[in-house]
């Protein structure tokens, strides 16, 4: 009876709400929230474009410089040198140049825009489960006691490999994975963070990066050789100085190609060595598999012969992206552990971000200031330094040349 009295009153209240509400929607509070895509809540420091299809690092300035250098040099070659070469030598030259250029750009964009192999962060339940396992292994700790470093040892093909715990991603990193401080992600088979490409180089885009630098070496040598040929052929007819005056763009192309060929070819050679021995740049710099570390130290990931290593790196199966950028967030899906979920045992996040900024600056300046110990890298570092200085001189000379012409 009591209920029967209440119900009509409730109905009246419901009707009153309906009449006040002018919109025809019957459940406005549910449909208000639009389903977000996973890239919009991605915890790393990446930039996404085209609704999550393109993924890059946060700093992309140097990538645009790479694009400009390649586009301008190639553009000048096709516009000023190719007509002469096509008519006087063979039209195959611009054709081959065109194919090389398209391949270089394709590989660059593929290396820059794809997911390098980012490992998604642990869900809260996973993180809690790992913490429980670590606490069980280490035993109870009192307040103020610093816990031992979180590592797990694993025997891979006879070599003991240490798996480190990532405090940011709350996972034990798989072997060969590393945390990129610039992108703030753990990347599988982390090679290095390449500012020229504007992205990390990891498992999923290493082959594109390698093919990019290899094809760019060929393109640079190709342009250099044929611009020199063009200038020589012209100077045979009209003299050297007038040949330079007729095609001033050739001077710029020669300068850019001459000073970039050393570092690009050097880098291609270095990465060919890495691929043939199945190592990453990270492992080579640290000397992880160097015989200097110990007599029985060898690379457990190598397939034994360099052909299999090369085939595996370049033609092996391409793993799919693990982060599902364009998927929609399901309301009941557990969200990954964010940076704010730091425990007392973890280093504070302000210190981490400060370290990241310092690391970023030191990454940029490190290569220019302190020479690395390994031979290959030392040559690459030296050529980079020389190239940087000479490009500045070359640009200055171009400006002086331009002003003398006008």
């Amino acid at each position, binding site marked *: 009876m009591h209920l029967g009295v209440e119900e009509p009153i409730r109905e009246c209240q419901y009707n009153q709400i309906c009449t006040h509400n002018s919109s025809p929607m019957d459940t406005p509070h549910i449909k208000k929230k639009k389903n977000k895509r996973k890239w919009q809540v991605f915890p790393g420091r990446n930039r996404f474009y085209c609704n999550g299809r393109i993924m890059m690092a946060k700093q992309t300035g140097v990538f645009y410089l790479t694009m400009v250098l390649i586009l301008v040099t190639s553009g000048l070659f096709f516009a000023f040198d190719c007509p002469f070469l096509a008519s006087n030598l063979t039209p195959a030259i611009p054709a081959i140049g065109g194919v090389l250029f398209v391949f270089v750009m394709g590989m660059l964009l593929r290396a820059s825009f794809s997911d390098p192999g980012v490992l998604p962060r642990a869900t809260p*339940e*996973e993180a809690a489960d790992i913490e429980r396992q670590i606490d069980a292994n280490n035993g109870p700790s009192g307040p103020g006691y610093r816990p031992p470093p979180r590592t797990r040892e694993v025997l*891979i093909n006879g070599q003991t490999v240490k*798996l480190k715990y990532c405090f940011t991603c709350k*996972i034990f990193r*798989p072997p060969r994975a590393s945390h990129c401080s610039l992108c703030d992600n753990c990347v599988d088979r982390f090679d290095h963070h390449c500012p020229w490409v504007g992205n990390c180089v990891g498992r999923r885009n290493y082959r594109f990066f390698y093919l990019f630098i290899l094809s760019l070496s060929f393109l640079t040598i190709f342009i250099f050789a044929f611009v020199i040929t063009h200038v020589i052929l012209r100077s045979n007819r009209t003299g050297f100085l007038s040949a330079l005056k007729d095609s001033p763009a050739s001077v710029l192309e020669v300068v850019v190609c001459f000073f970039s060929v050393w570092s690009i070819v050097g880098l291609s050679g270095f990465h060919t060595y890495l691929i043939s021995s199945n190592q990453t740049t990270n492992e080579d710099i640290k000397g992880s598999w160097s015989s200097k570390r110990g007599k029985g130290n060898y690379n457990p990931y190598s397939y034994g012969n360099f052909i299999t290593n090369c*085939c595996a790196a*370049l*033609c092996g199966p391409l793993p*799919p992206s693990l982060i599902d950028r364009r998927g929609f967030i399901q309301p009941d899906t557990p969200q990954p552990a964010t940076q704010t979920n730091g425990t007392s045992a973890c280093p504070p996040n302000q210190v981490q971000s400060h370290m990241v900024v310092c690391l970023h600056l030191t990454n940029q300046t490190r290569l220019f200031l302190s020479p690395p110990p390994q031979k290959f890298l030392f040559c690459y570092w030296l050529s980079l330094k020389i190239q940087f200085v000479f490009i500045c001189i070359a640009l200055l000379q171009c400006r002086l040349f331009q002003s003398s012409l006008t």
Partner: protein
Amino acid sequence: MAETHSLQDLRQAAVASKVFVQRDYTSGTICKFQTKFPAELESRIDKVQFEETIQTLNNLYAEAEKLGGRSYLEGCLACLTAYTIFLCMETHYEKVLKKIAKFIQEQNEKIYAPLGLLLTDPIERGLRVVEITIFEDRSIGSR
């Protein structure tokens, strides 16, 4: 009232706990999960059945990552077409992942859901773990 549950019933049931089967890196970086039987599942499922599921999963992942004539051919063809061929066709890995998703759904429907368990596809956890959700089973009487 029945002891067994269907997949739909599980969605309304309460989650008691989750068990995580970690990766096994002893063979290198290939995707492989530990076949060690978790203690929490002792009362729920047969050890042999569980190991068979994980072993089949491992075999499927090994098939996806296998280096052989087929993968090399696919890689070379993709390189020659500047990787544009993947706009029209799926990679071998993606095809096997679909197979794995189907396998997990079948296992859930036939074996795990009736026992109050649910396997989560490892790809949804970044191929880090096989997450097994244990649901509260009022009819059996938990613990």
